[in-house]
């Protein structure tokens, strides 16, 4: 239905979209996810030419709409759009918001337009508000009216530009429920969203956008449970990182402990976890890694926190010959090893191209 090839868009000297290639088929529900500022909304707005692409092609039903002579208004009548900020017509009642387009653009009679509008308002659950003005509605109601306004034009596809970002958390679900029902009824949709669960459950395909391209795409189950690329994983699992380099035998352990505590405090209120992490860091560095060095060491310490799972993971990296400290620890240090094993869920050791890696899951 829509085929995008080599699409690019430049704002001033900055390439927001570099090289987008995508296919959207009839009946598909595409979720577009990714960090902010990676061009998700721009991509969506290029699809109905609200933004004029700098290069590439968008072919809809066999016609490249970037060619001159395209009847843009006519094109847009088939592509509804739902905005983050609703953009209901402020001077019109809810009902008139729905009937304006069909009457002025599709040549429907007021009677027909209103009958259809009332039916649509019923289907999104705001029919009792039909004579009120947009600013008398709650955010969730506004967004549902906006969706109904799109539907009133009988579109072939609806583009959702972060439809729930401007909503109170309590109202998100009522809007998502409406979209979910549309998906069930087979409406083709492209949704830019930050609602990961929703994207996972509703979409038929997910685009992960980063660095101005579609960085990874696939079925939701693949993208969410088994992302192939590191950036996707970090995004999907919403991983927060803490990094520190230890470059001296006599490094300031207390400062490191304080920084760790600060990072942890941002993500958990569990004091025990924090003190466990501090204890593990102290034991691994002091008893397991530092003794391997004769001079000053060079150790990369990373603490990751996954917002999705709520798990912490410690990562130690240092150069040197392959030597698993968990196995080669002298007997008198078994105490440290036992302590670590008691405090952590699991641990692993890797050696690759001259670097040792210790992973500890807490």
């Amino acid at each position: 239905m829509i085929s995008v090839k080599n699409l690019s868009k430049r704002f001033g000297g900055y390439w927001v979209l570099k090289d987008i290639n995508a296919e959207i088929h009839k009946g598909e529900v595409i979720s577009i996810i990714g960090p902010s500022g990676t061009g998700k909304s721009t991509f969506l707005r290029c699809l109905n030419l609200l933004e004029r692409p700098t290069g590439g092609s968008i072919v809809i039903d066999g016609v490249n709409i970037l060619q001159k002579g395209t009847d843009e208004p006519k094109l847009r009548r088939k592509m509804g759009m739902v905005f983050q900020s609703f953009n209901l017509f402020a001077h019109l009642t809810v009902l008139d918001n729905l009937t304006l387009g069909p009457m002025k653009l599709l040549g429907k009679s007021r009677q027909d337009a209103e009958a259809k509008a009332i039916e649509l308002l019923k289907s999104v659950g705001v029919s009792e508000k039909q004579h009120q003005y947009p600013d008398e509605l709650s955010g969730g109601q506004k967004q549902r009216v906006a969706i109904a306004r799109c539907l009133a034009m009988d579109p072939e596809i609806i583009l959702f530009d972060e439809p729930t970002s401007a909503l109170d958390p309590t109202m998100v679900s009522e809007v998502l429920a409406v979209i979910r029902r549309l998906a069930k009824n087979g409406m083709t949709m492209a949704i830019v969203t930050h609602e990961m669960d929703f994207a996972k459950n509703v979409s038929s395909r997910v685009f992960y956008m980063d660095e101005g391209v579609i960085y990874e795409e696939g079925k939701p189950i693949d993208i969410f449970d088994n992302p192939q690329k590191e950036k996707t994983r970090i995004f999907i699992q919403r991983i927060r990182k803490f990094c520190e380099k230890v470059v001296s035998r006599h490094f300031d352990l207390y400062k490191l402990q304080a920084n760790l505590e600060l990072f942890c405090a941002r993500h958990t209120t569990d004091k025990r976890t924090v003190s466990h992490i501090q204890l593990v860091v102290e034991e691994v560095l002091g008893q397991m890694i530092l003794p391997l060095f004769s001079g000053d060491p060079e150790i990369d310490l990373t603490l990751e926190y996954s917002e999705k799972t709520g798990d912490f993971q410690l990562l130690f990296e240092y150069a040197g010959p392959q030597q698993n400290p968990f196995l080669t620890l002298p007997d008198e240090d078994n105490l440290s090893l036992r302590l670590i094993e008691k405090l952590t869920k699991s641990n692993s050791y890797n050696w690759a191209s001259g670097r040792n890696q210790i992973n500890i899951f807490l």
Partner: protein
Amino acid sequence: MDIIILQEAFQLKHTRHLLFVTLLMILALLAGCSKQTPTSRLATIEDMSNKRIGVVSGFIYDKFASERFPAAQISRYNSQTDLLLAIKSEKVDVAITNYAAAKNMLKDNAEVGILTDQILTFPIGIGFNKNNPELRARFDAFLQARKADGSLETMYRKWFDNDLDTIKMPKFKANPGGRKVVLGVAIGDLPSAGYVDGEYVGFDIELIQTFAAQENINLQILSMDFSALIASLASGKVDMIADCIAINAERQKQVDFSIPYMEDKTAVIALKKNISHLAGSQQEAVRSISLTQSLVEGFHSNIIRENRYLLILDGLKTTLVISLFSILFGTLLGGFICFLRMSRRKSFQLTARLYISLMRGVPVLVLLMIMYYVIFGNANVSPVLVAIVAFGMNFAAYVSEMFRAAIESIDRGQTEAGIAGGFNKFQTFVYIIMPQAIRRVLSVYKGEVISLVKMTSIVGYIAVQDLTKASDIIRSRTFDAFFPLLMTAVLYFAISALLLQLLDALDRLSDPRRKNRSGLLASRAGRLTLLLLAILSLAMVAVYNSTGPTEPKSTSATGAAIKSLSDLDGKRIAVITGTTGDFVIREKYKNAKVVDMVYPADAALALRANKADAFVFDRNTLQYILARHPQYYEILPERLSTVEIAIPMRSDAPDLHRKINSAINKFKQDGTIDRLKNKWILSAGTPTVPKITLDGRNGVLRMGTCLLSEPYAFMSNGVMAGLDIELAFLLAEHLGMKLDITDMSYDAMIAALQAGKIDLAIANFYKLNEREAACVFSIAYLENDISAMVRRQQP
């Protein structure tokens, strides 16, 4: 606590009371309530000495009364009718007038009686050049014979005892072969001499024509100022002069008089009840004029008399038409400019920005004049239309920026939603942006509309008679600032209030909150608004059409050339608002389209640019203009009327009045005035005011003048020049005072005099009886004619 509140309440009440009293006082002052003194009976001539005496201006009675009764308050009227009215309405106690005229008045007015006819009798004679005793002798002989056979008496009776309209002037044949004799007449008033239907008529004329026919004389008649008669005769320009000229010793020094051919008797008339021997027994309570009566009088004279409310109504209509159409035009143009300004095309943007900064940087008045004199200079376009265009252009510049601000204040999301919904840009603007922008712009738009309405008050500069101009015309006639100004203020306020109401209605219509909650009605609002606007414009078009064409039919522009005064009717006649020329034209030429101008230079320009067919003004100024542009203009030989020029003064300085009057008398007698007239008006050069040192030992004389009235008062090479300026210096020198000259417009002078801001105004002021209600005039220092100037006919 309670006490404080009580006190405050009391003070508030007190303050209100004071305010009210003050307001009443101001009203009384402004209304210029005439100071009426209680009347006591008249028995002898001497009883007149402290009375209010009425005279017709320009006659010898004026001078006689001011000399004989220096303490009396003298009012001057334009005509015998006005004089009679003044007696009957007790504006004056007695009137001095020609005996024949008095007898005529008494016929229909039983309440008026003659106090005495033994006050002033002059022998009337014909003046001859002292070097031509032969002609005088022949005339004396002719007179003797006519007296002897009674035919002089018959001719006298014919002219003086009959209704002037019924008298037939016999036809005299021209006598080209005879000896040429030039007769100078002033054609002042019938029955002595007048000019009717292109013919000189009157008793004096018939007498001299008869003489000429008998003596085989080729008589040429030349009309001139009454004051110029003696001088013309003395200088040999004319051979004889006539026009009811009284023989007196002073004149006899300069000219020879024939034996008297008639006697002019003078009568003093008054209400019979005020004359002792006619009063009978009825005693009337002493009347005093109350504040209310003076207000009523003020209202009557400013609004009712001469149907002046019609002037105000016409002005109101014009103001309304100009306001509404400039608002409509300006709003449409403003929308277009806004479109250009918001366009993505740089050239459009630049054009709009240029237009906006230009329109905002040029005063509306200047824009108006440029439109009228330059852009539409040679086009025959109604000045009302020019005003609409000019104001609309100015209005457009301001509202276009308002529109832009309102449109830009609408959230971008609204446009995006429209575009994304499949509307094109135009549809998005019309259906989504405009309805919201209109609501936001209305509050500032309202203010701009009101200021436009007030701004239209300057259209008087391009000869449109609007509300302000109407009030100016009335003020210049009555010298009363209060009523015309108050009325005008109230009417402007009413127009503004009306427009505000209309815009408020629009506001309500476009406000979704106030509408009926039915969806049907809500979306009709736009249509209703449009409908309202349509009805409004239709109504205005109807009003506009009902005012008739503002421009006379094209016949006047291309029609027959104006060769005499009788051709003036139906033509576009330029006048300076409030001058005698203005009044004369309005009275005599009902079908003429009066083009009101502010300055003579503008009027002359308008005449030259074919915006008027004639310019009626005082002959002196016209001659002055003609002398400088002989290729464009010519002046019709006949005169419309004769006026006196005098100095209006503060009414509360009797000492000053006396001094000024005596100074003017002195200047008249010692030839100063004649010298000034020759120097400033009749000679062609560029004279200057000689350096006169004023010592100021008797204080400062504050004088108002208008420095835009060549040759009376104007700026020449950076210094003040003109007849009035030089006269002012001479007066100040004579009075031993320093001179403080303030330049102001004519209307401002009247108000300044009333407010005591200036002591006198020397600015070629015509002496009109109505003006004398508001301030005191000196005796006349100049005489002038009202004449008409027309475009020079191309050969």
